[in-house]
């Protein structure tokens, strides 16, 4: 709402009509009502968002163990500096990055292509759109368990198919690249449809006249996609890449359930930061260290999202100035 005050009552048309009651009495509750509406969210956010965030920061400065919760021992920034020399932390950071790229990039590219196809007039369009959302509606646990079966070494479907075309069985659990690809594939499977629908919604806001005039100019479908669809989708693409970045940084359920181990494989080969935090906190009961990892992840997300936003902002500014210069 642009202004909290209700508009002033209209001037009386005739002097005989009694003036309306002063605006103040009616105005006060009206002015408060937006706050009342916002309050539930902010109360919950304070209780379940801000407080845990701050308390996590507090705990991260202590040596805190789940088994002896009463005995906090001051460590200052010790939990944070220890991470610099912690090989498992660096492995987890690297894995988070590689799995993030392996899952986000194909996912968004495929979503873009699928959305483009679905944007045409198709028979049974609603069916396809609903079907795309089905993987997203599946629970992580169910999806990961199925994928773990598919990627099994001896009896997995994937290795059987590879065998048909004469490729040696791949050790999807223990190989570093192989296991990361397997974990990424679960993420890709679950989120591609979701992003497709967001892209599709974005595409439908692009005016049809642009396509018509492009067609009149003789632009092919591919050129239309490159020069009409992509620029029009820019804000949507920025949105999905930010959301996917946050999701990739927090990746947890898929690697945890892939083999059911907190260490992300026998050599930590697909242990993400989220999983490492869980292992420290709830596997080894080092709550202080887990809290420090949680804060590092939080800061990492802030930096990544900030970089993402400023990158896209700068590009769009550059594009605009280039356009204006060309005029």
């Amino acid at each position, binding site marked *: 709402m642009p202004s909290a005050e209700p508009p002033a009552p209209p001037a009386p048309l005739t002097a005989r009509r009694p003036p309306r009651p002063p605006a103040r009495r009616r105005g006060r509750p009206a002015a408060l009502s937006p706050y009342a509406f916002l309050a*539930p969210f902010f109360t919950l956010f304070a209780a379940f968002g801000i407080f845990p965030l701050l308390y996590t920061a507090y705990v991260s400065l202590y040596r805190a163990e789940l088994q*002896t919760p009463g005995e906090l021992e001051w460590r200052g920034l010790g939990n944070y500096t220890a991470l610099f020399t912690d090989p498992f932390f660096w492995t987890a950071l690297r894995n988070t990055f590689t799995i993030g790229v392996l899952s986000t990039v194909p996912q968004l590219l495929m979503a873009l292509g699928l959305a483009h196809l679905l944007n045409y007039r198709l028979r049974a369009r609603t069916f396809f759109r609903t079907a795309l959302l089905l993987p997203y509606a599946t629970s992580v646990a169910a999806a990961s368990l199925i994928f773990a079966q598919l990627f099994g070494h001896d009896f997995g479907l994937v290795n059987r198919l590879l065998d048909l075309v004469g490729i040696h069985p791949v050790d999807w659990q223990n190989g570093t690249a192989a296991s990361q690809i397997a974990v990424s594939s679960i993420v890709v499977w679950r989120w591609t449809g979701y992003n497709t629908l967001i892209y599709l919604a974005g595409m439908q806001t692009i005016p049809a006249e642009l396509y018509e005039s492009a067609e009149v100019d003789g632009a092919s479908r591919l050129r239309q996609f490159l020069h009409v669809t992509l620029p029009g989708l820019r804000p949507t693409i920025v949105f999905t890449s930010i959301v996917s970045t946050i999701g990739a940084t927090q990746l947890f359920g898929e690697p945890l359930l892939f*083999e*059911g181990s907190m260490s992300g494989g026998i050599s930590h080969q697909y242990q993400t930061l989220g999983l490492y935090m869980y292992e420290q906190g709830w596997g080894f009961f080092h709550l202080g260290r887990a809290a420090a990892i949680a804060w590092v992840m939080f800061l990492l997300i802030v930096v990544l999202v900030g970089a993402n936003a400023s990158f896209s902002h700068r590009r769009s500014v550059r594009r605009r100035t280039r356009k204006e210069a060309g005029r």
Partner: protein
Amino acid sequence: MSIPRTTPRAMVRLGAVALTGVLLAACGSGSGSGGASSGDAAGGDVTLTVDLFGAFGYQESGLYAEYEQLHPGVKIKQTDTEDEQDYWKSLQTRLAGGGGLADVQAVEVGRIASVAQQQAGKFVDLNQYGAGALKGEFAPAKWSAAATKDGKVLGLGTDVGPEAMCYRRDLFQAAGLPTDRTELAARWATWDGYLELGRQYKEKAPAGSAWLDSVGSLNAVMVGQQKERYYDASGALVYENSPAVKAAWDASVKAAGDGLSAKLDQWSPPWNQAFASGSFATLPCPAWMLGYIKGQAADAGQGKWDVAKLPGGAGNWGGSYLAVPSAAKHKKEAYELIKWLTAPEQQTKVFRKQGNFPSATGSISQIADAKDPYFSDAPIGRIFGDAAEQAPVQVLGLHDKDIADQINNALSEVERKGTAPETAWSNAKKAVKNALG
């Protein structure tokens, strides 16, 4: 946005109602748990909750039904987690929060030092219900592990894990090896003899069948044969230089190098499937493993399995306790239940049904002649009884289970990825350091 003029008041009211509802909901949860301990004195109907891991066999042996019949008004509800690691994780979380605990909680022997040294305040001292009188019924080592320095008794022993070697007669026969358990015990009197037989097996083995399920189980059973393993008697961490740990590591690495293992991850679904399909011919088995084999191999394994003496002498792997958390709702009734469940007669029943070897001394003499038809009539009472008698009294440390898990993990690297043993050992040390913090 246009809002009709009459609504703001109504909307404020609506907002206030919604907000009040949220606040009430937020406050409401705190007040419910206060009267929890009132059940102690009451003589009315009581539902006792029992939270276990693995296979304790109480349900299977019909002990709950029997107890309910003996104690009208008492109902027993059991929950069970297959993997002890998962069980322990959730137990610790609930102990820290003080909620969601069952009246009876099981504790594995690898964790009992942690309970006795760090968490004595979170469990009921069973002496206040007269547990002290039971001391003579248990092996001294089993009893003292669950007692604190100042004399509190935090748990009653259920079973112990005397070790033997389980093997598949049909697979041995197919590979041209002897199938008689006495002859085998003589052939694998030492671990070298066991590995040598393994190499012979590999030459003529049926397709898709390995000698051993995983080198992790070999490592665990060998470490179980030694008195001092990860900690010394003073409580200092010594696993890096422990001869016991080194001997077990070397033998396991050798078995992996010779390709004797089916490379399965214990407690994983592929491992479970392998019991029936015959992917491995031998499985080092503490007594409690017998029930697990029966559960996994089921009818397909009937009469195919057998049990022989363990190579390299007697040992102990595992065994558990039943404890009552301080936050339990029905402490006295819970004590009565665990006292009954761990009494010699009941431990005998569990052994006969499930194979879990009793820790009550009175029970051991009752089962000396026990044979198990599932395991080709192997004299399990004598085999495990001898092992229990000869097994060393182990030094228990705070993080025994965590260290064992990390070393096991490093062995899997050697076994499944072909990592050089030296690299894997240094990985294990890093992982132990990381886990212990």
